[in-house]
């Protein structure tokens, strides 16, 4: 049986080339297709053909199953399979390939020539140059590095004289100090460790910690570097980053805790623990959200609010406020929906920053009619008793449907707390129409 199957002609190379070409065309259109997925498609196609009686299986079905992860991928795949301009593009690319190869070779030759012939950097070259670029252009000689260093220092000095801004002078001092420190030795070695470098190292480690508070190596480095001074260093770091009020809060809490520890007995310490700062989490959330988020031990806020934002045309004036609201409520939000006549859910992943979310909401833009009732009905399925629903809308329904007051009351009967953020014009109206528990804000 197997030998018979093996006998059936299966031109591997041709099929593989076809699948790879389609994958590349889709990649060009923005689809994320990994090499693993290409391999998966090839293997699956081969097996599917072997399983069928006539040694034939439609390739499109395999590609649809492997390459199309979302609806937009399906459209891209269909375009490629239809032999759209992309097919032509692939053909053209194929033809152009040798030419490109030749160009690339020439480019490489010139860079090599530069290097071997001792190409000299001019003052004008320096303007657009960086250390990375030097490396990339294969001009990474010690002489060129020094030249670039000197150029940068002179630029700082020139900027100081031009603008009179003392920060440039500070920058220059720091630059010179760092250079001298480097000559002395690494900041990680005992001799070479200066206060400035130690803080820059701590800053970088805290920076890492700010993106993942449980990062093991960062934690171990911090504990090794600072021992019990962690909180003090965090305070200094926060001040440096302009989060003075939060730093003061932490310092005040630490002072209080230290005083109480010395004054009172052990029993009270456990009670005090609850009002103490979780310094690590505080730094994490502050860095991530770029605004102060104090977190106390044993008091982590749960994400339990669902936000429904009106993105219809009538919200054009107020959309900025809606975005600001998202920013301020970010920590408590479980899900976000945008609606006009239809409802769209905004993806909220753990690794998405606040900025990403805001960018996505702004990108959605304001357009379409308003159908609040429909949006509420759709979101209803996602709500559980005890959830909080925040509606940001001008509450002007422009599509004929049942009254949203009925839907809101129905949601309230399900024990869902509703908060309405609306325009000044409608606040009083809403307070009259809706139940007392429904709150309307400006």
């Amino acid at each position, binding site marked *: 049986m197997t030998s018979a199957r093996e006998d059936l002609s299966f031109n591997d190379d041709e099929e593989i080339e076809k699948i790879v070409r389609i994958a590349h065309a889709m990649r060009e259109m923005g689809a994320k297709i990994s090499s693993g*997925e290409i391999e*998966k498609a090839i293997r699956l196609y081969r*097996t599917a053909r072997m399983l069928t*009686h006539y040694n034939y299986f439609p390739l499109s079905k395999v590609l649809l199953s492997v390459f199309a992860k979302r609806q937009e991928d399906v459209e891209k795949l269909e375009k490629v399979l239809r032999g759209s301009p992309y097919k032509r593009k692939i053909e053209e690319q194929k033809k152009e390939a040798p030419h490109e190869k030749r160009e690339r070779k020439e480019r490489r030759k010139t860079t090599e020539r530069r290097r071997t012939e001792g190409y000299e950097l001019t003052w004008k070259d320096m303007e657009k140059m960086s250390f990375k670029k030097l490396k990339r252009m294969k001009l990474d000689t010690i002489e060129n590095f020094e030249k670039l260093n000197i150029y940068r220092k002179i630029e700082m000095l020139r900027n100081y004289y031009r603008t009179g801004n003392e920060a440039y002078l500070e920058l220059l001092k720091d630059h010179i100090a760092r250079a001298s420190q480097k000559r002395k030795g690494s900041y990680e070695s005992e001799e070479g460790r200066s206060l400035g470098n130690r803080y820059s190292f701590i800053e970088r480690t805290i920076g890492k910690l700010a993106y993942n508070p449980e990062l093991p190596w960062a934690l171990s480095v911090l504990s090794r570097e600072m021992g019990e001074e962690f909180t003090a260093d965090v305070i200094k770091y926060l001040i440096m980053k302009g989060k003075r009020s939060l730093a003061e809060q932490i310092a005040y809490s630490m002072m209080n805790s230290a005083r109480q520890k010395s004054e009172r007995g052990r029993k009270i310490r456990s009670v005090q623990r609850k009002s103490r700062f979780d310094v690590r989490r505080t730094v994490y959330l502050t860095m991530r959200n770029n605004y102060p988020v104090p977190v106390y031990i044993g008091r982590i806020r749960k994400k339990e609010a669902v936000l429904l934002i009106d993105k219809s045309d009538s919200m054009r004036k107020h959309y900025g406020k809606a975005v600001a609201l998202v920013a301020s409520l970010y920590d408590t939000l479980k899900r976000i929906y945008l609606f006009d006549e239809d409802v769209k859910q905004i993806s909220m992943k753990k690794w998405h920053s606040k900025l990403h979310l805001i960018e996505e909401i702004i990108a959605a833009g304001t357009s379409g009619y308003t159908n609040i009732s429909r949006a509420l009905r759709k*979101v209803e399925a996602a709500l559980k008793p005890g959830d909080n629903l925040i509606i940001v809308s001008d509450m002007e329904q422009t599509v004929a449907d049942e009254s949203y007051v009925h839907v809101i009351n129905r949601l309230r009967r399900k024990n869902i707390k509703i908060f309405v953020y609306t325009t000044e014009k409608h606040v009083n109206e809403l307070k009259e129409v809706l139940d007392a528990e429904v709150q309307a804000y400006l």
Partner: protein
Amino acid sequence: MTEKMEEESIETQDSIVEKVYEIYDKAYERMPSVRNPREAARVLREKYKLLVDEDVITLVFSSFIEGFPVLFEGPPGTGKTEIGEALLTLWAGRRAFVLPCSENYDEYRVIGDFHPLRAYKEGFNENSFVPRPLLASLILDSGILIDEIRRSSEEFQNLLLDIIDKRRIIIPELKKVYRATGEGFQIIFTSNPEDLAQNELSDAFMRRVVRITFGYPTLNKELEILKLRLGRAVDLYDEDTVLAALRAIEEIRKTDLLYRPGVADSVRWMGISARIAQLRNHEKVRSEDLIDGAKATLVKRPEEESIIMEIVKMHLERRV
């Protein structure tokens, strides 16, 4: 005979394996395995009363051979769960496990946890360990269908990714590793991407699975499914009546109602309407029987009743 001997030898090896056989073996009994797509399509049609495209079966079985898990995506009522369960059963030769997901699922609920009282008395050991479906399916070498995967948390999905990749489950508390012994242990996920109240699937997850989409069938195919599912009750219908009812269903699916009927709903509607007609001593199913049946089966939300009934009545009247 040899199978029995194998089982016996396994049982003597490990107390957890023994426990799995004790708990799950009877509930998920052995069946003849079918791994030929054409034969499987026939068995699905005759035994399970499911009309499945042979290409879909071929793709699923190819994925199993290559060791890729499968994701069935589509709107509710298109037979994803039923087809998935049947395919896994046919492939493994043992009734498949079905795990309906929820947000608070974790490894303790799917792999196994410790009986609290026993653990208190005897400690966290093999005696107090209770194996759960995922571990059981791996040990029994049977398929597992993880239903509505989008409802589960990200942590749970990541846990599954590891098991899918390595085809093994680690129980750190017992310092034990269980590996899939045969080809029978396969996973099918189902999900409805249109549902709003759920999480998204990560790119890492989507990269690992073979995605097969299900949609609503064409009119002719749905008619064929009805005939297959209803059996003799089809005789109570005129062909015009069935077609009118199916057109009504088709139109309801095009609206933006929250609950749109699937194939399962149309089968249920026709079945119940036929029963109503029988109880009323009607020779053939009449419009009023279908309307009463529609009220009972198609209307899931009171606010949508008027729209649904209007569409149904319109199509049934047009037939007259």
